[in-house]
């Protein structure tokens, strides 16, 4: 038995059945792609929808500083266009609203050690990423995670990404109410939801407990909910202001109000209706215009609202919309330790500095939230394991990741703080400065991202080192500023909402390419990412630390009483700010000093030749293609069962594969196709067989008959030869379904 098979066997009973089935299907698709039986584009999108991303150099080319070299991997099929099978990749692991338990932390740590490089990276959307992972390890990793309730499903690709939420929800002093159970319900509802499988691009939802703080960053999300309580007839009723169409990237958009105060019972169906409208009308071909923000800009928010409400009216009822509301209280966390005050407890060295920046007083008297500031969002497996122990000891289950790439412990009883600090310090996790200018956010950039232009992590590490060395001498007004760095215009480092933001680009100086960062000033983190910063010009990477100093000095010198950094930059204006940074645009000639031609954290001369084609946008693959590919995987499972002598399972899987293929065709005419076999067969017969749409030019309806026959005969005892024939016919049925879809698409484009 292979290791993967042993893991599967061992974990089977611990995984939620739906996740287990999904992973089986992915494993079958992997095998089909290894045999080159599915198209590389379809496999790429399938892989992305399981969270398995490509990484830099996975096209087999790398510039080593002297020349561009071929990376001579063993021969194998590709895992996507221009993406080599054996090249290491990244896996993104969804952590809804950042909530993670000590047990889950332990498994994440083990997976990072056994399958990756022993580092867990917290992303700006509260996910965990592991890098340098081999695709073959994917199914085992997914099973290990699924066994503790974690999924990678739809963490990448054109689907619903992780649902983010205030990490301090439930303990926050200013929230309307705890958004955790709502975020959790939406996560479960949308995961794999049929109405969210046909998007042209990714779709990111977020929850916030109030409008004025930053935590949920609703205004930069595709779909966002801000909690509100309304007095209706003397009753305190919960609801949400619903926003749509926010997003960063090259064209940053602020979200627009879709509905003011939607009752709590409406938030799931509204998301479903938004998903349907986006799937139906969103751009599919031009991926640069395919996010929902472009659709809303095109239609106008009023028309978009009308379409969503119209769609909402016709949605078939789903009990999951409100089932969870009966159980809201179960999400309330229980403190592990009695509340207490710090009083005059002895304070270890360094405690006061840490306490000043890393502690947030909870709404609940006697409790605080402690922030563990992670350098560049990184934590080792060993630290993670020990952190799980510390969490168990002090807070039980209450751990969350944050969009600032940190981890927080909630419900710390105040008197425990000195001991907690000492234990965190012993494992290198007690750095002060959380949420201040030294706590810099950075996307992966050129370290691992195929689209990275400049080294965001290299720059962030350099700025952190320099600023940390003088953090206590910095003026108070500057200490509170936020710096965020993206490796390119795609904005994964969220530079638009930083006080001082940077994104990577390049300039050519005397015929040499010099890494640069565009400087973006005055973004508003508060008010849920309330406004975006102003680009003021590009500066060579190596001169960015001087730029930070110059901006800080000017702010200290010219700040008016009580003036925010946003107001300050708005007052100075683009021209003045451009002039401020213009002193730093020059670099020595290449022949005199090479350092500006080498990026931070690297020693190779800079080049853009290493950039690849990003997978962020997913593949442009139709939904029918994906569903038919899924049907093929089920047919593959039937074959495996047959090989193992399990005739009953082989028969059932073959039938399921045909039903799945038939259902995918039915869906092209019927947005809500039935789920039960009888109805699927009936709809398929009426819509595709009786109409002859499914008919092959020569074979006519021959390939559909095995579906009807198997449906009519049921799972009565069959001989092995019957099952062999059924599986062969299943393959032919799926092939015929592909052909039918191609014919229909051709007919449609001919009709346009």
């Amino acid at each position: 038995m292979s290791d993967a098979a042993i893991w599967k066997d061992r974990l089977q009973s611990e995984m939620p059945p739906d996740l287990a089935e999904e992973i089986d299907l992915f494993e079958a698709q992997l095998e089909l792609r290894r045999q080159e039986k599915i198209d590389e584009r379809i496999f790429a999108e399938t892989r992305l929808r399981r969270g398995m991303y490509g990484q830099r150099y996975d096209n087999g080319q790398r510039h080593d500083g002297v020349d561009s070299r071929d990376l001579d991997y063993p021969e194998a099929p590709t895992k996507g266009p221009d993406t080599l099978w054996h090249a290491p990749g990244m896996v993104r692991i969804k952590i809804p609203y950042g909530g993670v338990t000590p047990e889950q932390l332990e498994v994440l740590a083990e997976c990072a050690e056994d399958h990756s490089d022993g580092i867990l990276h917290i992303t700006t959307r509260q996910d965990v990423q592991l890098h340098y992972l081999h695709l073959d390890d994917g199914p085992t990793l997914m099973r290990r995670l699924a066994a503790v309730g974690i999924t990678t499903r739809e963490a990448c690709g054109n689907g619903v990404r992780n649902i983010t939420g205030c990490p301090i929800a439930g303990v926050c002093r200013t929230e309307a109410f705890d958004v955790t159970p709502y975020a959790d319900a939406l996560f479960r509802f949308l995961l794999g939801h049929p109405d969210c499988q046909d998007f042209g691009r990714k779709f990111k939802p977020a929850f916030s407990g109030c409008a004025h703080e930053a935590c949920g960053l609703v205004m930069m999300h595709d779909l966002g909910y801000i909690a509100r309580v309304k007095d209706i007839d003397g009753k305190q009723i919960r609801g949400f202001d619903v926003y749509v169409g926010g997003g960063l990237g090259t064209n940053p958009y602020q979200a627009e109000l879709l509905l003011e105060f939607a009752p709590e019972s409406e938030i799931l169906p509204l998301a479903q209706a938004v998903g349907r409208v986006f799937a139906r009308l969103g751009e599919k071909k031009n991926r640069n215009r395919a996010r929902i923000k472009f659709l809303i800009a095109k239609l106008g928010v009023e028309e978009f609202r009308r379409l969503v409400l119209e769609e909402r009216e016709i949605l078939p009822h789903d009990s999951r919309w409100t089932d969870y509301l009966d159980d809201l209280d179960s999400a309330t966390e229980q403190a592990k330790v009695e509340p207490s005050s710090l009083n005059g407890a002895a304070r270890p060295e360094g405690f006061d500095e840490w306490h000043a920046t890393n502690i947030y007083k909870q709404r609940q008297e006697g409790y605080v939230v402690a922030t563990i500031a992670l350098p560049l969002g990184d934590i080792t497996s060993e630290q993670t394991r020990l952190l799980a122990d510390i969490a168990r000891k002090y807070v039980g289950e209450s751990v969350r990741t944050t969009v600032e790439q940190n981890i927080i412990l909630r419900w710390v009883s105040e008197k425990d703080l000195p001991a907690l600090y000492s234990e965190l310090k012993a494992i290198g996790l007690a750095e002060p400065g959380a949420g201040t200018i030294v706590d810099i956010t950075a996307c992966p950039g050129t370290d691992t991202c195929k689209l990275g232009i400049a080294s965001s992590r290299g720059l962030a590490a350099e700025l952190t080192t320099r600023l940390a060395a003088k953090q206590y001498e910095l003026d108070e007004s500057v200490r509170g500023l936020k710096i965020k760095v993206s490796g390119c215009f795609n904005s994964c480092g969220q530079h638009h909402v930083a006080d001082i933001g940077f994104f990577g680009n390049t300039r050519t100086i005397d015929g040499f390419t010099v890494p640069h960062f565009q400087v973006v000033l005055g973004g508003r983190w508060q008010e849920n990412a309330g406004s975006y910063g102003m680009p003021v010009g590009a500066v060579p990477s190596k001169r960015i630390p001087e730029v930070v100093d110059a901006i800080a000095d000017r702010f200290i010198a010219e700040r008016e009483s009580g003036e925010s950094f946003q107001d300050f930059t708005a007052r100075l204006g683009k021209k003045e700010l451009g002039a401020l940074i213009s002193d730093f645009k020059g670099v020595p000639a290449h022949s005199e000093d090479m350092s500006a031609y080498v990026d931070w954290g690297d020693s190779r001369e800079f080049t853009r030749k290493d950039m690849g084609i990003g997978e962020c946008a997913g593949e442009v693959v139709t939904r029918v293609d994906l569903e038919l590919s899924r049907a093929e995987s089920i047919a593959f499972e039937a074959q495996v069962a047959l090989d193992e002598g399990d005739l009953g399972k082989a028969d059932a899987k073959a039938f399921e594969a045909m039903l799945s293929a038939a259902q995918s065709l039915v869906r092209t005419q019927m947005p809500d196709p039935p789920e039960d076999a009888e109805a699927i067969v009936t709809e398929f017969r009426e819509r595709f067989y009786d109409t002859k749409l499914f008919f092959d030019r020569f074979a006519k309806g021959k390939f559909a008959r095995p579906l009807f026959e198997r449906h009519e005969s049921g799972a009565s005892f069959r001989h092995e030869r019957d099952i062999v024939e059924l599986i062969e016919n299943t393959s032919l049925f799926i092939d015929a379904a592909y052909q039918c879809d191609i014919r229909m698409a051709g007919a449609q484009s001919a009709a346009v």
Partner: protein
Amino acid sequence: MDLHRISAKLFIADASAISRAAGEYIPIFHRWIQGGELSGLPLDVADYGHVIDGPGVMLIGHEADRSLDLADGRPGFVYARKREAAGSVRERLAQVIGEAVEGARRLENEPALEGAVSFRTDELQISVKDRLNAPNTQATFDALSQDIGAAISDVLPGAAATLAQLGDDRRPFTVQVTVSGVAQLAAA
């Protein structure tokens, strides 16, 4: 026992030699890639020097990673096999230990370090990052001890090794090896 994810760590004799940022090793590892002299397929350099007691600076490869490792506050050179390896377990262990010794030797002779770095010859650490086949238990230790001892003799002739299992069962299988009979890596 079918083990692949085996790693070996040799410790730097004077930890203060790494007192400066581990970033010094970034250009060294890039040069190693450019030189094309390493076995296997080296891919890239990853800098985790900012993480306390972390993997330091890594030279990521297809079959194996090499690193200037900072784990447990004890800097050292690690060779960590990732993909399938050929041969018996003893041969695989010997290949990994041999690569670790080879990497450490390279660092000792690295011109940019000007002789500042030398490695201890009286201890090394063997780990297996594979919780399925090699949980950190007495049974794994019993099953692997002989092969580890033999592999050390294969790579460092004349060396006598004493093994001790490290850590609890949540950590990867790790063995601390005390070695006698080896004067210096260059002569090994």
